[in-house]
């Protein structure tokens, strides 16, 4: 339960730091807080926005959490998100299910490039996954400016996906069926990690690969599997964002969801169920920042800053713990 305390402290610290910065820039913290709450949970509309923003965060958070627990440094969720969305767009004409499956596969393959480079060439995945992020980013740029650009060729974006491929919405809200998928994936991963033998082996690989190997675990398989699952989930995040929210691709589609996933995962202490709560927190942070930009003209980049503060607080707290 100390973990939950650590998470709450980290979240509170982030808010405190942000409030302090707001103060330093001449804004009243109480006012800022009021605007932030209004923008994130203050109305049904705001709440919907927060939940919708939380969905990709939940999935990229899960992606990072699975990888980190297996001891694999997948910093490539951003690129896997993009590639998943690209693949989903291309497969959209074949229907919703096909698009979702393809997004998972594409993300898994993109991540597996890094796995292959690690085992074949000793290239550390912490670097290769990041480099692949940039490659994916420019792949998207090329696609929306070139082969996949909208027919009228006015903006760097694609045409919308056929409505048969779109994720259904709940009534008149902006909430889409992706919520269900994301929650199901969350629960499935929790069961896998905490309740199955293979999940146990994956966690053991993350704690101590050497001891796991002596205990008969196929460490190579676990690493490859963890990367594939991680990439697949991130790819699914991209696919769902496309099919449920934006319905078309454009240059800034990814918007940092992949890197935010790291903050989400760490705040949740890499626990699948905790990731649900963590994703909601960061989703709220995002919508709050949007409202702050609208009302108080504070740049939306505070959200990125807030994520960094959370990460640093969590690991700072973690290492204090490790010392006693």
């Amino acid at each position, binding site marked *: 339960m100390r973990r939950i305390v650590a998470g709450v402290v980290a979240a509170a610290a982030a808010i405190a730091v942000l409030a302090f910065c707001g103060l330093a820039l001449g804004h009243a913290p109480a006012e800022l807080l009021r605007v932030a709450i209004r923008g994130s949970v203050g109305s049904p509309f705001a709440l919907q926005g927060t939940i919708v923003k939380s969905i990709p965060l939940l999935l990229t958070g899960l992606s990072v959490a699975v990888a980190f627990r297996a001891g694999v440094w997948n910093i490539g969720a951003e690129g896997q998100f993009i590639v998943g969305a690209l693949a989903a767009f291309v497969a959209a004409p074949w229907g919703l299910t096909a698009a979702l499956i393809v997004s998972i596969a594409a993300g898994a393959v993109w991540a597996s490039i890094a796995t292959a480079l690690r085992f074949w060439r000793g290239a550390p995945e912490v670097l290769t996954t*990041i*480099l692949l992020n940039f490659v994916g980013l420019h792949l998207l740029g090329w696609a929306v400016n070139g082969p996949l650009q909208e027919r009228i060729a006015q903006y760097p974006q694609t045409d919308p996906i056929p409505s048969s491929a779109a994720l259904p919405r709940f009534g008149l809200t902006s909430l889409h069926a992706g919520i269900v998928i994301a929650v199901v994936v969350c629960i499935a991963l929790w069961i896998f990690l905490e309740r199955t033998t293979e999940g146990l082996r994956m966690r053991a690989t993350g704690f101590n690969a050497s001891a796991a190997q002596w205990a008969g675990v196929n460490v190579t398989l676990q690493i490859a599997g963890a990367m594939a699952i991680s990439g697949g989930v991130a790819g699914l995040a991209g696919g769902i964002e496309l099919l449920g929210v934006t319905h078309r691709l454009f240059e800034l589609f990814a918007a940092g969801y992949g890197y935010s996933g790291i903050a989400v995962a760490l705040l949740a202490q890499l626990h699948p169920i905790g990731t649900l709560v963590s994703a909601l927190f960061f989703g709220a942070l995002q919508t709050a920042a949007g409202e702050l930009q609208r009302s108080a003209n504070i*740049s939306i*980049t*505070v959200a*990125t800053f807030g994520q960094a503060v959370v990460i640093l607080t969590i690991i700072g707290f973690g290492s204090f713990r490790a010392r006693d």
Partner: protein
Amino acid sequence: MHAIDFLLLAITASTPLLLAVEGEVVVQRSGIINLGIEGMMLAAAMGSVIAAQLTNRIAFGFAGGIAGAALLGALFGFFAIVLRADQIVTGTAINLLALGITGFIYRELQQSEIFARAVQFRGRNLVVPLAWIAVPIVLAIVLWRTIFGLRLRACGENPEAVTAARASVAGHRWAALGIESILVGIAGAYLALALSSGFAENMTAGRGYIALSIVIFGRWKMKGVLLGTALFGVAAAGQYALQAAGHALPFHLLLAIPYVVTLLILCGIAGRVRAPESLGRA
């Protein structure tokens, strides 16, 4: 484009990269992985622009760059050395922090003098020979021929041996971070003041990560990283040349070239690379 011009372009354009690589070699030799050089360089870029525009002196601009890098470097050092926190996560957080802060400052002050006016960089370019000749020689001598350098390298191989010899592991790692902060500070300043005409959001564009890759390729030695950066510089210059020549190759795919080249560089390690023994271990 003439061959000479091409080579000059390659060398000049990759000078910030080289400085970052040289700094990271020192730090990794002391046993720490600093993924945060991306953020440090970005902070240096912003710091240098602010300082240069406010004082109208380029020298102060470079000082501002070093200050920006050092601030984040100190933060990284606090977490990695004092708290013994995970270095990879800390480095990633530093990068996010830099992105957030510089983005915030830029947008807030976008209209102001500092960022609206282009930077004018005049005068002798000392940074390129510094980076390509002076720094590698000095670092090679310090690391391999002085007792300070010996102890620093021992920190990256077997810190226990350093403690047994009554020297401070933490002290040497902080010194390494200090050296890196200076070099990365100059790199960011040069990027913003000389190679560009000011600050732009996310202007480092992954140079920090490319630098990390070249450190590995160069096997943590001066000669190797000089070669690696030169190779990369040629490839990057090739990209610019292709762009300028208006080739049929799509613009965005050209933008991806540096990263693909870096991936190939990482593949060129050919399996067995021996990193400093205690690298990354708290």
